[in-house]
């Protein structure tokens, strides 16, 4: 099977996922179209050479519905011959889209493919796609369903993280993101979003609060205490009866932000890349997804990392940089604790707590972020992973070439 190489990665800056967000007037299709256009234009791609475009999108309805990947391909003016596929692996959709693109190349189905994702959370609300898991009592009973913030809070109880721990992590995320922006560490990948007149709407992540402090975060009310108390705590505690009561420690300031954004990553075989005059930046070393206990939901990153490192014959110390989506602070703290990961190798440029988590796009965004950082800091290997709804985890290991 051929090796798969990464040639480029682009992302939009992330706009606040609200009515007053900079990207609220921009359609999801437009966001997807602009990243596809950017990756074509800066690499001078002959799009007829691209076999498939795979895009993550978690709420595929309304303007994000009916295979937005194919429609974005057409809207971006790609060759008609380029296929498009929309996928959902909940929060890891963007990374899974990249893994699928890479796997198609590895399997010989494609020579060149794009993975990426899009989510306009300000325009298509999270959860508006419904889903049997939550409302149909069959799966809800079987899995002790509780909204994932409650699982995140429970991780704090089970593994010993309190409010100060998660808030401290959140402050660090903000500080790291602010430093990364001020030092231009994201410059290689971020492409400004423009309006129909070609005027820039947003060129910088809009959600950040670099001045966040332990004091300012302490004022925020726990986000999941009320719904937990009313409905869901007793359910998840049926699965974790050793916990007396859940300390609700997460809030808007230490959880991933709701934002709009899109991303695209270009994959190809070495031969195809060479034929098109492109220089490979990294090799995809391995990919994996797992399922695990669904009610706590968010402990998959540890397990998928173990699975993938085992398969690659690697150990935790062999990875120079870890990029774990900051869905909730406790998720990152738990993975570092479980695998004994040095905090200086984890999310070194901040993450979704500071910059936001456009559900379908994030996985592709953080793949690009960590690739940039490998190059900037001249390191070799990175592992990208995300916690995923219903207890899944997805991961990818890349190494520079």
């Amino acid at each position, binding site marked *: 099977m051929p090796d798969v190489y990464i040639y480029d990665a682009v992302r939009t800056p992330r706009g606040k996922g609200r009515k007053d967000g900079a990207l609220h007037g921009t359609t999801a299709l437009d966001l997807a179209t602009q990243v596809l256009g950017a990756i074509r234009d800066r690499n001078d791609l002959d799009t007829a050479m691209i076999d498939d475009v795979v895009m993550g999108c978690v709420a595929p309805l309304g303007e994000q519905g009916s295979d937005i990947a194919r429609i974005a391909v057409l809207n971006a003016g790609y060759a008609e011959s380029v296929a498009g596929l929309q996928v959902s692996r909940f929060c890891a959709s963007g990374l899974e889209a990249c893994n699928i693109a890479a796997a198609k190349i590895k399997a010989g189905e494609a020579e060149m493919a794009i993975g990426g994702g899009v989510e306009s959370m300000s325009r298509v609300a999270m*959860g508006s796609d419904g889903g049997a898991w939550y409302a149909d009592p069959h799966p*809800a*009973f079987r899995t002790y*369903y509780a909204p994932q913030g409650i699982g995140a809070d429970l991780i704090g109880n089970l593994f010993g993280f309190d409010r100060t721990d998660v808030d401290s992590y959140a402050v660090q995320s903000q500080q790291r993101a602010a430093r990364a922006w001020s030092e231009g560490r994201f410059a290689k990948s971020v492409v400004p979003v423009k309006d129909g007149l070609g005027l820039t709407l947003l060129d910088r992540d809009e959600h950040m609060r670099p001045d966040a402090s332990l004091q300012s975060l302490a004022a925020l009310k726990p986000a999941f205490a009320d719904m937990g108390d009313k409905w869901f705590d*007793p*359910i998840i505690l*049926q699965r974790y009866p050793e916990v007396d009561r859940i300390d609700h420690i997460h809030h808007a300031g230490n959880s991933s932000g709701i934002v709009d954004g899109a991303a695209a990553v270009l994959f190809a075989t070495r031969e195809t890349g060479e034929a098109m005059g492109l220089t490979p930046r990294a090799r995809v070393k391995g990919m994996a997804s797992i399922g695990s206990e669904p009610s706590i939901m968010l402990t998959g990153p540890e397990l998928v990392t173990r699975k993938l490192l085992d398969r690659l014959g690697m150990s935790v110390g062999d990875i120079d940089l870890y990029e774990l989506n900051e869905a909730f602070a406790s998720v990152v703290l738990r993975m570092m604790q479980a695998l004994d990961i040095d905090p200086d190798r984890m999310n070194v440029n901040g993450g979704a707590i500071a910059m936001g988590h456009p559900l379908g796009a994030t996985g592709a965004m953080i793949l690009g972020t960590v690739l940039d950082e490998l190059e900037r800091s001249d390191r070799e290997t990175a592992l990208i992973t995300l916690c995923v709804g219903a207890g899944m985890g997805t991961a990818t290991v890349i190494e520079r070439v």
Partner: protein
Amino acid sequence: MTDFTLERGDDGIATIRFDAAGRTMNTLTTRGWDDLAAIVETVREDDAIRGAIIVSGKANAFCAGADLDEMLDAAGYTPASAEEQRSIVDRMGKANRVARALETCGKPIVAAIAGHALGGGLELALACHHRIVADDPRIKLGLPEASIGLLPGGGGTQRLLRLLGMARALPLLLEGRTLKPAEALSLGIIDAVVAKGEEVVAARAWIAAGGSPQARWDRRDFVLPGGTPYSADGNPVFIQSAAIAARRSQGNYPAIGNIAHALYEGAQVPIDRALQIETRYFVATLQSPQAKAMIRTLFHSHPALAKAEDRPVAPPPASYRVIGVLGAGMMGAGIAFVSAEAGLDVILIDTSREAAERGKAYARSVLDRRVAKGIIAQEAADAIVARIRPSDDYGDLAPCDLVVETVFEDREVKGEATRRAAAAVREGVLFASNTSTLPITGLAEAAPDPHRYIGMHFHSPVDRMELVEIVLGKETDETALAHALDYVKAIRKTAIVVRDSPFFYTSRTFDTYIREGMEMLVDGYAPTLIDAAGKLAGMPRGPLELTDDVAIDLVDRIAGQRRLSLGAAAERRRSDDVIDLLIREGRYGRKNGRGFYDYAADGTKRLWPGLAEAWPVTTPHSTPELVDTLKRRFLYRQAVEAARCLSEGVLTDPRHADVGAVLGWSFPRWTGGPISLIDQVGAARFSAECDVLADTCGPRFLVPDALRAMAATGRSYYGEARIDQVAA
């Protein structure tokens, strides 16, 4: 026609009279549905009929529901083939088909309700186009199926959903709560409440005024109130509803889950398809072992014991006017109160007038709360309190028909009180001792006539606990038993009958629950996990917190008496070490704010850190498999003890074991009681699982020989063919 008859009216409005032949109460049977099906056909076809009113021919109720036994016989088993199951579904769908035919017959149908409409009775009314109920707060309306492990299978889930929306229908269905007419009207379950006797007139008027023969869910513009599962409004409601049902069921009650399933799935399709879905879940529920066990214990055994149906027939009934209560402490005050509440005069004796007055004041305080809540009128409350006569003079007991002794749990003290009372009362008066620990046979020696001496173990608080454990001493005769049962029935409580033996039945078996919790503590399980597992099994409280509630020194005293009564046979248990440590540390439970938990003034509790020092937690985290094992230990340990009580002759009737457990210490209702649990699991599998537990946990799990024999021959306590296994 035997159950329903059709009477034509001059005005074209017919009357459909429900008057089940040969029954005192209207219950819906296959026969009745056949009758109704034929009548519906006539109403539909006959142009001279322009509408109809359904009334009851019984004074006591419109209809109390469907005939459960008929349904269990017809469908309450696991069919041998898919074909047989299809035929069961077809038969069980009959009610829905006939009611639906009524609803779509094209002519307005009104239910004129002058008495209770429960279960199938209310479901029939819901299939009418208009419901009018007499203004009588005694009338109960509701779908109580869930409380006996069933779901409404006559359209109740779907029509209530369509009338009220998910948010309001679900709790009514899950709780099985019954409503008074005014409440049902404000919820929108019924359409009008009219003066008693005016229901039919009002029904006629509604039809004459052009009442619509179309249910609102048959209109094109119908929308489900509050929204469907995937509408913007409905989605959060249905997500929350799944959690509400999961919390209530904890995986123990198939009926709860199936109600939620029927509502979720039924909300997304038209009513005809929804009714088919309901029928499927109804059959699944009826075929669950939990439903059968709950129906047996809660619907059959409990009312039978409440009516004292197995009272010895020979002795003539005793009627009580005046009873004497010795001791005005918590139990005596409670017994005095419930007796007075039942219309008896009570002489309440204590060592001082003040103490006796305090006992009377208890009745006043309970009633004051009820008056404040509007449950009872002030005059009625005053009349009850006035019936209690406090005194410190045993001579005042002269007019008593019965003496209930409730003094301190000490043989000498009880003997002295009994002798003093005996000197005052007339010959032949029945003496009852409220004891939970002392052998009745020994206490009877102080009585003037040991044949007329009996144990009456009330449970605390007496005004809320329905169970009385009647204890037969060696000499207690049949008449004494009959008369004791007459008294218990008179005060509207329910008796089980046990033979004299250490700690009788309820205390003995309950004790195994809390002790199993302490065993787990010594095993190294996290205390929080232990208490939570007890509750997940369906017990109302965890064993450790419950021990704190009961009081640790009381458990210790019982253990001391056990050692006295068993002598050398009383082996030391690991749980005794736990109790000993707590006592040494001055930790008596909730009553002094220190037990397994430390209790703060604000009502919160925290585990006592010393517990972990004495018994370090070696298993802090759970798995579903571990939780299942802990649940099984709790339930099986109690069931083994109940089985021993039966095989030792402490109890002679499994119904008494089951009803006593459910009423006495809230043994999980889903099991139908500890003996029903063994039948549910099957004697063979139960014994085998207990053998495994005996190997891993200790011989306390060994089942009695009688149960082993039952396992070998495939028999069960209730003498039925073995019902399906359930994961307990």
